[in-house]
């Protein structure tokens, strides 16, 4: 180390140009990777949805609307409506649980907070396959849930609690809950404690303060969390397949059946494109509603 400040670097090369060279070097590989593995498959999916379905799981490129026309039957529309209801229900309940949970966790002492975070992160190591299996064990006729309900006198005769809509709904909430608590954690930990404190000194009850003062401040993250849950669960496959009755089956199961069992890839692709379009529509609608409904100071 010298006392003399370093000489400015020889400025023969234009710094903007070196930046560009460095940027190209940095981004060339990621750009190639994303083009081949993201844009091409997306385009292929779109093309496939307009293709012609041949016998034996084959297809030929075409520009026909046969597959989309097949979607306009009441059965598919019912399945689509059910999938969205299930996803929105999951979103509302999981955010309603995750928001106060994340808030309380973010107010704990460091040790307790770190313990909760490690606990939540560790539960992500349980595959959805095994979560579904555990729900089967817990909800079976001789399982812990039935025993508890019998002991409380809420159930008169022991019978299995699945397959049922309730089992599917509870399991989906379980699957997303740790993710949503972790997703909301940064936003709620940023919250200022002075505002709720001021509200309660003015006589508001803690629950009331939480709902009317704290919640509106983090409305944005809460909405994003809800939409994220809808995105993750609207195409759910395993949970309704194992824990639901056939009338609880979702678009996810329909797409998978078309692709893997019937071998009708174009139909599966059209269903997938329809699913994403409906999702984008829902996203736009929420944005529009939350945009026009807000009163910005």
């Amino acid at each position, binding site marked *: 180390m010298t006392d003399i400040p370093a000489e400015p670097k020889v400025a023969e090369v234009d710094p903007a140009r070196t930046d560009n060279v460095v940027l190209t070097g940095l981004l060339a590989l990621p750009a190639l990777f994303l083009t081949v593995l993201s844009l091409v498959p997306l385009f292929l*999916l779109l093309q496939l949805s307009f293709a012609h379905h041949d016998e034996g799981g084959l297809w030929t490129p075409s520009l026909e609307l046969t597959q989309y026309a097949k979607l306009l039957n009441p059965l598919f529309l019912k399945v689509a409506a059910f999938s969205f209801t299930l996803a929105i229900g999951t979103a509302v309940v999981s955010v309603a649980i995750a928001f106060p949970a994340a808030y309380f966790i973010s107010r704990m002492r460091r040790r307790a907070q770190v313990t909760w975070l490690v606990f939540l992160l560790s539960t992500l190591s349980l595959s959805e396959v095994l979560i579904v299996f*555990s729900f089967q064990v817990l909800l079976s006729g001789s399982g812990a849930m039935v025993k508890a309900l019998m002991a409380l006198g809420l159930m008169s005769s022991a019978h299995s609690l699945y397959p049922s809509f309730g089992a599917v709904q509870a399991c989906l909430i379980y699957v997303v809950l740790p993710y949503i608590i972790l997703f909301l954690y940064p936003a709620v930990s940023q919250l200022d404690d002075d505002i709720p404190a001021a509200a309660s000194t003015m006589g508001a009850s803690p629950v009331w303060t939480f709902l009317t003062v704290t919640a509106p401040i983090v409305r944005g993250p809460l909405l994003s969390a809800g939409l994220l849950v809808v995105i993750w669960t609207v195409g759910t496959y395993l949970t309704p397949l194992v824990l639901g009755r056939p009338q609880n089956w979702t678009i996810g199961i329909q797409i998978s059946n078309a692709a893997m069992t019937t071998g009708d890839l174009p139909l599966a692709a059209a269903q997938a494109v329809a699913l994403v379009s409906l999702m984008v529509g829902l996203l736009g609608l929420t944005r529009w509603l939350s945009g026009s409904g807000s009163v910005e100071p």
Partner: protein
Amino acid sequence: MSLVSTWLRRGFLGLVALFISAPLIVVIGVSFNASRRMSFPPTHLSFKWYKAFFTDAEWMASLQTSLTISALASSLAVLIALPIAYAVWRYQSKAAQALAGAGSGLFLLPGIVTALMFSAFWGVVGHVGRVENVVLSHAVILLGVPIAMLSVGFQSIDRALIEAAQTMGASDSEAFRMVVRPAMAPYILCALVYVFVLSLNEYLIAYMVAGFSVQTLPIRIFASMRSGYQPTMCVGAVLFIVLGFAAFSFLAWVGDLPKLMGRHRPLET
């Protein structure tokens, strides 16, 4: 806070903890249960399913396949995300921002859609049922996770520190080594572990891309569940839970976990 609200808060968090741990307790219980039947709580403690798991060539092959796929997919995803996040932070590059957006896009599509997309893609490419298909598909679909985590990491670096290093005569690469690298190391580790865990437990995409020839652990567990269940299938899961717990405890020990998870406000001990 009043006594009532303190107890309300504790009761609520207790219920959430119970709900979240219930399936974990079931899986751990079944894996140590001497009986084959799905009974809970376990009647006799036994390690026989662990012995069965570790001596069965098929379960061991699935374990190895799963660990290989996750290790490769998480390394690849982080390697691709790192230059993108760095270019966004260091150069505010529009191209890098576009790549970050595109890279996060697939993560925001339902799993069934990406699964179908890649099953069709590998079919057209004519490269069907290979392990590398799962690795590449997982890496690109989960790319949104490391991009988000590493961006949080870069934003947490104090630019004044870099300027200070440069004023003291450090070159760009020296400043990078002294300031950026140590600040980013825990975020990189965190992103690696996170993608690893997500890839390890992913079922649908692995199944639709190569499920008929590549048996990852979740695929084998699901097959075992459908064809008369064996407690052996819970052993792998217990290993993963222990592994996940160890990895995240390690992260909490070497790094500031609340900050890694996105908390900005300092937290006193």
